[in-house]
């Protein structure tokens, strides 16, 4: 009986898609559970077990200490405008670039700052945007300002670095959404008498909203967790003391892992809150495929 039962089970499992091939997923799954889910849950647990022993001690401390809770505002104050600026500039550029025959050289150039990463961009900006750098020399030469403009070691340094690395990222994402819209829809709009602005407003924009929402979320969470440039290009003790600096200091300067976990959790939940809000708004719009007709 055992044999017959086993075959039956195997066949039944295979019918539900569970067989040898499916098992290939297990190592990766375990890896992700061990290195992502477990640390996250452990961090959550740890955040409720602060050094002083009280359940909500860390969170109470965070929201009582302006030096800590203000990091949320400071981070939002950098991340929100940076994300919006990037999207606002990326959309028109993507609409021009979609018409180009050969986009490769441009995309290659734009991928450069992403690949080089924030640390290198920070070092480059310190030189380039510094008081003796080429940028300030040029605008003084053109007579735009009398003296050098302070662009590093303050709010603007962090903002500019988020634009230099964030704009290409936002742009490439939006470009992929824009090129995903069936060009026949634009032609249909043209033959029906819609001018460029109407085509954008009535055809492209509604179809882009879901993509823009995703782009906003991804760009925002990157900007919200800004770290190296806030330290290197900003004023990490003042206006650019962002939330990841607070978490880092708790963990690696005070060795208070419980507090650090709490801050990381707060960071995660703020991001999650914004993402959920944006996706909820997205849910109000059309979300189907962006092609007119069958396949």
């Amino acid at each position, binding site marked *: 009986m055992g044999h017959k039962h086993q075959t039956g089970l195997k066949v039944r499992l295979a019918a539900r898609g569970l067989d040898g091939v499916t098992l290939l997923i297990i190592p*990766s*799954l375990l890896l*992700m559970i061990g290195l992502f889910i477990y640390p996250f849950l*452990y961090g959550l647990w740890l955040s409720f077990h602060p050094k002083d022993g009280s359940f909500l001690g860390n969170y109470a401390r965070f929201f009582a200490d302006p030096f800590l809770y203000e990091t949320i505002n400071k981070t939002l104050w950098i991340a929100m405008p940076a994300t919006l600026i990037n999207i606002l500039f990326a959309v028109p550029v993507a609409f021009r670039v979609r018409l180009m025959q050969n986009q490769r050289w441009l995309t290659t150039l734009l991928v450069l700052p992403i690949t080089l990463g924030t640390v290198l961009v920070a070092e480059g900006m310190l030189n380039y945007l510094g008081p003796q750098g080429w*940028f300030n020399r040029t605008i003084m030469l053109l007579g735009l300002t009398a003296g050098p403009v302070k662009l590093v070691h303050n709010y603007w340094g962090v903002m500019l670095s988020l634009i230099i690395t964030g704009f*290409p990222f936002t742009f490439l994402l939006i470009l992929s959404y824009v090129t995903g819209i069936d060009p026949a829809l634009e032609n249909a709009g043209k033959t029906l008498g819609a001018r460029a602005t109407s085509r954008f407003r009535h055809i492209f924009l509604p179809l882009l909203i879901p993509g823009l929402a995703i782009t906003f979320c991804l760009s925002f*969470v990157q900007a919200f967790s800004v770290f190296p440039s806030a330290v290197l290009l900003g004023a990490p003790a003042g206006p650019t003391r962002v939330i990841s600096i607070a978490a880092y200091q708790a963990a690696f300067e005070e060795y208070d892992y419980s507090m650090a976990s709490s*801050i*990381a959790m707060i960071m995660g939940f703020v991001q999650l809150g914004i993402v959920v809000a944006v996706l909820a708004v997205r849910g109000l719009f059309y979300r189907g495929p962006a092609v007119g007709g069958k396949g």
Partner: protein
Amino acid sequence: MNQLHILGRRLWIFSVWSLVTFFIVNLLAMIATVITSSTATRWLRSWLPDAYTFKWYLSAWSEFQLDDVLVTTFQVVFAVVALSGLFGVPAAYAMARRDFPGKNIAMLLFLLPMLVPPVTFGIPLATVLYQTGLGGTMAGVILANLVPTVPFVILVMIPFIEQIDPKIESAARVFGASTFQLFWRILLPLLLPGMLAALLLVLVRTIAMFELTFLTSGPTSQTLVVALYYAVFAAGVRAVQSIDAMAVIYMAITVIWLIIALRFVNPAQIVTRAKQQPSAH
């Protein structure tokens, strides 16, 4: 009316391209600054340095112990590339070929590490690694870097595997290929181009991955980008030119691999391939 439209359109196109040009000019000028500075004898209060030299490369090499750092960097990077392939490709194969209960949850599990920024999950991860004694070791750095790269490989490989006709595998079975032969003779050659692209992208991303390595590395397990961060952070201790020389070395390594990668992938894929997935309903 019509004239006005044409003028408006031209003006709009002109401003959009001006914006792009402004961005790219500044970007290239920024990179040029670093390169110029790294070869300057003295560069203060002038457009260009007084004279040029390569001595900063030598001093950077010894001051920052770049030989050690580079060896560590490549050990970490190649380990991450190999392990991501070993973990990711079979999982992608299962995801592409089978529908099983809980597949959506598995997909979500692979998407999350790519969507949550590294700093956010890096701090709890570093905490766990330090608790288990892996914190600060090279093994810890490699494990931490696998968190975003394994899902990346899976997400890049799934559409690639889906476009390989499963009938090819069935045909090989019909002609009597064993599982091993099937894998070695049929699947591997078919998967190779996709794996090459995915792993090259992992390589480029891992060289540039700052946050996770920074949070989990110790003095002996620093990669180049983390060493660069500490050098910039402690600016003033060393000559600017020396730091810039290190930055140029870092840039050269990244760009060489980027150029190699771009022979096999579309540049936009570095950002979009994996990120597009969540939008595909």
